[in-house]
């Protein structure tokens, strides 16, 4: 038993040396997660700023100018064209100069003064429906604010109707970055740890060192543990570096408990490494290992809730996401990071990850025993 422990420690040390000794490989393990976190932290946002829009103001009244001023002053929009005729709209949008065209009717002020509804047309470029929808949402909030201001200025406050007053928990300004960066902890580390694990055996196979390892007293299960732990250590280092970038660079306040976060990470990495080991026992070459990883990672990423909510997916796919460790990792890191979730709140995710690890690791061990040689 104690011999086995020493053997495993030796293997762990050897694996870490092999990864961290070569400066090229050391850089490729430590720098990309930070770079990706920075880059994607800035890039991966549904929040829009300076959306280019074109204005066609048929009214040119005091009220319409005030409305336009509200749009221009919001910070969300940047007027790139002021048009004279409806025929110019098409070119602006089609050629991607503007994402939106706002058309104010000729009787805008008159209708408002008359106490009725003034129709404003908002035309959006639907090639990116996501951006278009968000931009239209922005217009609607600005319009809401403008009209209530207009009413109070024109002494019509009394009949304002029911208003909605929103409060946001955990992320008061609805910043995408706040939920995106904690999600990257899982996404980036999973990609890297799976590649490392899947390649580690294929690499030894191609170099011929694997047979040398197999004739030593190592048991398959010891080799597996010795391959799994270094990947998990590297994954933990990567996760920590992303966590540091999130707090020190992006200044996203960490609400939760580090103990809970690292416990969840441990479970998540164990589950992912299990999948990586499974792949590594099948892959004969490094090429097969990496392609297997990418082909598996892609659905994991798409079905994780990272970019689109899981609740929107068809029911069958929602069930499928239950097998996806990344789904739980993202949901857990968000909850711990932003909501200060405790173990009791995370119990369903923790149990699910435990179940995944309890399947992938033994299956990988079984595959190891049966496919070695």
């Amino acid at each position, binding site marked *: 038993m104690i011999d086995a422990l020493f053997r495993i420690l030796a293997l762990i040390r050897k694996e870490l040396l092999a990864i961290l000794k070569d400066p090229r490989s050391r850089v490729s393990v430590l720098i990309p997660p930070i770079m990706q976190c920075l880059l994607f932290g800035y890039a991966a946002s549904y929040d829009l700023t300076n959306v280019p829009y074109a204005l066609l103001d048929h009214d040119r009244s005091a009220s319409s100018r005030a409305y336009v001023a509200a749009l221009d002053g919001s910070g969300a929009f940047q007027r790139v064209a002021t048009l004279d005729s409806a025929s110019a709209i098409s070119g602006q949008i089609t050629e991607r100069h503007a994402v939106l065209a706002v058309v104010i009717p000729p009787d805008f002020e008159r209708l408002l003064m008359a106490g009725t509804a003034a129709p404003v047309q908002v035309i959006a470029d639907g090639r990116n429906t996501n951006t278009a929808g968000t931009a239209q949402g922005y217009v609607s909030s600005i319009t809401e604010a403008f009209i209530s201001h207009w009413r109070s200025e024109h002494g019509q406050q009394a009949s304002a109707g029911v208003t909605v007053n929103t409060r946001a928990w955990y992320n008061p300004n609805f910043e995408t970055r706040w939920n995106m960066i904690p999600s990257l902890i899982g996404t980036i580390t999973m990609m890297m740890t799976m590649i490392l694990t899947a390649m580690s055996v294929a690499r030894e196979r191609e*170099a*011929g*060192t694997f*047979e*040398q390892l*197999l004739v*030593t*007293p190592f*048991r398959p299960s010891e080799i597996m543990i010795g391959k799994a732990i270094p990947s998990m250590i590297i994954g933990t280092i990567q996760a920590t570096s992303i966590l540091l970038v999130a707090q020190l660079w992006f200044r996203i306040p960490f609400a939760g408990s580090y103990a809970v976060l690292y416990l969840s990470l441990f479970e998540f990495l164990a589950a992912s490494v299990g999948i990586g080991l499974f792949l590594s026992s099948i892959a004969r070459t490094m090429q097969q290992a990496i392609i297997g990883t990418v082909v598996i990672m892609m659905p994991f990423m798409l079905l994780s809730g990272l970019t689109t909510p899981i609740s929107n997916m068809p029911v069958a796919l929602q069930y499928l996401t239950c097998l996806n460790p990344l789904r739980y990792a993202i949901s857990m890191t968000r909850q711990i990071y932003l909501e200060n979730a405790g173990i009791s709140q995370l119990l369903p995710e923790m149990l699910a990850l435990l179940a995944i690890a309890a399947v992938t690791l033994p299956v990988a061990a079984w595959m190891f025993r049966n496919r070695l040689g």
Partner: protein
Amino acid sequence: MSPPPLPVVLRGLAKRFVRDTSETVVALDQVSFRAEQNTLTALVGPDGAGKSTLLRILAGLVPPDAGQAEVLGLDVAAAPQAVQNRIGYMPQKFGLYEDLSVQQNLDLYADLHGVPPDQRREIYHSLLTMTALAPFTSRLAGALSGGMKQKLGLACTLVRSPDLLLLDEPTVGVDPLSRRELWDILRHLVHQQGLTVVVSTSYLDEAEFCGHTVVMHQGRVLAEGTPAEITARAAGRVFLASAANGMAARSLQAHLFRHPEVVDAVPEAGSVRVVSTSPAPPQEGLAELALQFSPTEPRFEDGFMVLFRAVAREQHSSAIVLSRPPAAPAGSISVEVRDLVRTFGSFTAVNHVSFQVKRGEIYGLLGPNGAGKSTTFRMLCGLIPATSGTLRVANADLRTARAAARARLGYVAQKFSLYGDLSVDENLDFFATAYGLRGHRKRERIDWAKEQFDLGALSSLASGSLPGGYKQRLAMAAALLHEPDILFLDEATSGADPLARREFWGRITALSEQGVTVIVTTHFMEEAEYCDRLVILDSGRALAEGSPADIRRHGQRSDGRPVTMEDAFIAIVENWRQRQEAS
């Protein structure tokens, strides 16, 4: 009309490489020689002598730092493509596409060399007949045995008759039968088709087939001449020695090899072939053995060793002392194989093979490429399961045995298979721990290994960057750290130079004398003389088993010289194959 330019003219060629550690290695230094039209020129020399670099420069793949290389009248450095249009080059590790079939590989090279389609049938026919690959045209190249791969590589190189053929160690890892066939092909090409060939080899007997030999050492040309001229350097100094008291040839060889008056000693046909430093046989301190020396004809290898020992490093003591020799009683069975069968699909790789190896014996597995040696070996080491039969190593079945059983054996693979990116120390430390060594004892064993194998000065170098001979030592050191009872050596001397091979066998002999059981595979037939017993396999069957003397009785020679192991080996395999064809 002026005569055609000489195929190869080298003047003052030099080449250096810079290692990762920024140290400069001189690969070639002031190399000059020429090869005449329609000749076979052999480049011989130890590992790292610069043979491969020289051939790569000739092929236009590596530019020289200084000097001039003219190939077929062209300056290679200036016009590599023009040279490549006319030569055939077979690198040491021929780049067959293993996921393509034999025919597809041939087609590819025929297309690349622009062989006209209407001539192909005839060329393919003669190449496939010559290489005996005709039955396997649709087989994937990766599924061929090592010797067949080399032959296919040669066939690919020869799809078009080149003006110059460059071959880099074409016979490494090739069995004696296939080697003989390969050389028949080469001689045929030179004599019948007027080809010019430059070939590098570490099998010194092959140099005797060549018209011209260039002996290289550490990037320089040590000597040049016909094989007879090189051989003549040992003239009158070669003897066959045998001990009156019936001392085993192996032990006598170990004894003589260390003798100061001896240049070289190898076991041969039950005696020991000795090259003396003087025309008289060595005498000092040998009286008690009552040796009988009879003069014999020198061989190329003897001349080479005379040349080589004059410049080579001092031979390192190959004595090896175990602190804990194996505990099993003498005469007990270490390895037992009964009715061993292994099939891959419908193909039977090992067909009812049985043998026993006793403690302290050196046991050899010999056979042509594809005979089932590797498969048997891998089953013995527990790397693949047997289909049926029993197999016990150190009283355990390794396939199911726990760590404890595997801790009692050591394994040196054919190809260097320690971790190339880790240093010597890190590798030793890893394998020591893997074999259960800890604390003081681990440090002690690592120090022992580094001293024994002279690795101390290199201990912080990445093991992948070590010179070939040192890689082999490191592999042995790692396999001996835990003082195994049984040692498995898979073609451990393949591609090694003669001196390194003798050192290696010195160590093996010392180990077996201390009770370590050793199982080896090798393609150097003369090395079989070091074995206590050996088995010859072909097509998965054991054809002959016994002591070297028993095996040699299967062979016969018409020229009256003593039957060598190679003669016997070829006789056994060919006899069996003829009987197979007949039935």
